[in-house]
């Protein structure tokens, strides 16, 4: 994913060149209409399951659509009422702040810093070390989200492993899931997601030319200086692309939080996806839940657009 920005070396360009030579030359090649026909199934699925819901979201957020009550029987246009409620609802403010904390804590600080650290440390180590450490980190990533939620709920339980370790170290114990629920889910998500950043950065690091690093070393730069002034600047695009993918992934995390804390206690770990679920499908207020979803979509769309811009120059060149 992230490396899409980096990679796509000779192959694509070669094919593009060859294509203009090949296409249209042979009489048996299909007509323009027949050429696009195979795209139809994919386009139909994407339209039905992606485009239609997004359009419906826009419409529903201006109505009082609901699962039960008057809004269910006859859905009416209510103008900006949902948005006014969104702007003044303390639960939305709370969820937005918690989503930001969750994103910055687990996505940006946790996954990116840990992932980069692991990638840098593993660079040039023996294959044995790389696959042992990498295997453990990727193991957390491969684990289904529900299982990761249960694993972390058990880990942070009052009687759980973490308190046991802290006790052995003489540190104070606490019931993590109730005293600091947002920290609990931040840690769990950083644990689960770090592998993705690590793999992206490992792949990008392996493409940094050794001569550049050697040249810097010959000029007297230490390891830290080489990383800071040679390696990291070359990785800027990969970092940008990976950060955006991580951001999009992190703002929509539902399962992990739902399994660990269900948004509680007292809404202290209710991020926007959990609020959306509660409002729309628990309370049955589809329209308002959809409006919350729209806020989420707007944030994600914004980041997606930035991600596209980051990728584009490489594609066009």
């Amino acid at each position, binding site marked *: 994913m*992230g*490396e*899409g920005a980096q*990679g*796509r070396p000779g192959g694509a360009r070669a*094919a593009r060149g060859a*294509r203009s*030579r*090949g*296409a249209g030359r*042979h009489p*048996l*090649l299909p007509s323009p209409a027949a*050429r696009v026909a*195979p*795209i139809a*199934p*994919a386009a139909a*699925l994407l339209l039905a*399951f992606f485009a239609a*819901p*997004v359009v*419906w*979201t826009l419409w529903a957020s201006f109505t009082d*659509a609901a699962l039960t009550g008057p809004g269910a029987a006859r859905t009416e246009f209510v103008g900006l009422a949902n948005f006014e409620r969104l702007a003044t609802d303390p639960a939305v403010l709370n969820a937005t702040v918690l989503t930001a904390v969750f994103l910055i804590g687990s996505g940006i600080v946790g996954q990116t810093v840990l992932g980069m650290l*692991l990638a840098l*440390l593993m660079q*040039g180590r023996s*294959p044995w070390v790389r696959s042992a*450490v*990498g295997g*453990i*980190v*990727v193991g957390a990533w*491969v*684990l289904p*989200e529900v299982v990761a939620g*249960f694993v972390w*709920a058990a*880990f942070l*339980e009052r*009687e759980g*492993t*973490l308190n*046991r370790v802290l006790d052995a170290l003489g540190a104070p114990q606490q019931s993590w899931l109730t005293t600091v629920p947002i920290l609990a889910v931040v840690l769990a998500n950083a644990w689960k997601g*770090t592998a993705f950043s690590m793999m*992206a950065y490992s792949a990008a690091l392996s493409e940094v030319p*050794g001569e550049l690093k050697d040249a810097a070393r010959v000029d007297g730069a230490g390891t830290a200086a080489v990383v800071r002034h040679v390696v990291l600047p070359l990785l800027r695009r990969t970092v940008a692309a990976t950060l*955006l993918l991580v951001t999009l992934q992190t703002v*929509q995390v*539902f399962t992990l939080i739902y*399994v660990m804390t269900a948004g509680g206690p007292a809404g202290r770990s209710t991020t926007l996806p959990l609020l959306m*679920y509660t409002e*729309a*499908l628990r309370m049955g207020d589809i329209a308002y839940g*959809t409006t919350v*979803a729209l806020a*989420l979509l707007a944030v*994600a*769309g914004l980041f997606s657009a930035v991600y596209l811009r980051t990728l584009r120059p490489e594609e066009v060149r």
Partner: protein
Amino acid sequence: MKPWTVASPRRAAAAAVVHALLALLAAAFALPALWLVAAFDSEAASRARLPRAPTLDNFATVATPDTLFVPLANSLWMCGGAALVTVAASVLAAYPLSRFQLRFGRPFLYTVLFATGLPVTAIMVPVYSLFSRVGMVDSRWGVMLFLAAAGMPFGIWLTKSFLDGIPVELEEAAWADGASARQSLLRVVVPLALPGLSVVGVFTLVLAWGNFFVPFVLLQTPERLPAAVRIYTFFGQYGSMDYGPLAAYSVLYTLPVVLLYAAVARLLGGGFSLGGAMKG
């Protein structure tokens, strides 16, 4: 990094520090998952510890049709079906995008790339509403098709980059022998792209297998739930947890995807990294 031919004490010390740090990080990452050994413990608790008398009783407890086998079969049919649909539709869509100069090819690809970024969670409420309007709520077909659509943007993108890597010259040879575009797709391109297509398939399958939210929202009847949701309804909803069986269920439900993932990682030859698959 180049191997260092001249060993220096400073370098050796730095290597020791790096290895110590890596060991620490690996231990920190392994620690939470250690609890899964509770699967083999008859007196399991939330705390990780070595079972005093290892047992398979917990597996026997969860291995009933209602708890395990039917949900696993549901998972297999919905996620496996989604993977097949995604691969088929992706290769059909990616072929013209890779081979022909299409007027709207680039906008389409950018739309697809844009869709990869859309949070699936955010559209589930509207999807639920649409499904309830057309009577598709509580339908395994509906979930399967939705999971296929969710895998599609990434599938098309990945498949196209695999197809780009297959030289057009091979197809031109087939065309020269009188093959149509359809024949050259089926006889030349698909066999050559098979490793790549299996990556797309496994990737979709693994993501769908782990997806909780989509079936959680769209399905209601207990007999139709996949393992991802069944494990939650069985263990998660009522206060105190039954740790032994929960761990056993987690192991049984996780194992297939871990094995598949390992197989794909090996197929790509990139050791632990699926990241290599995304480089096209």
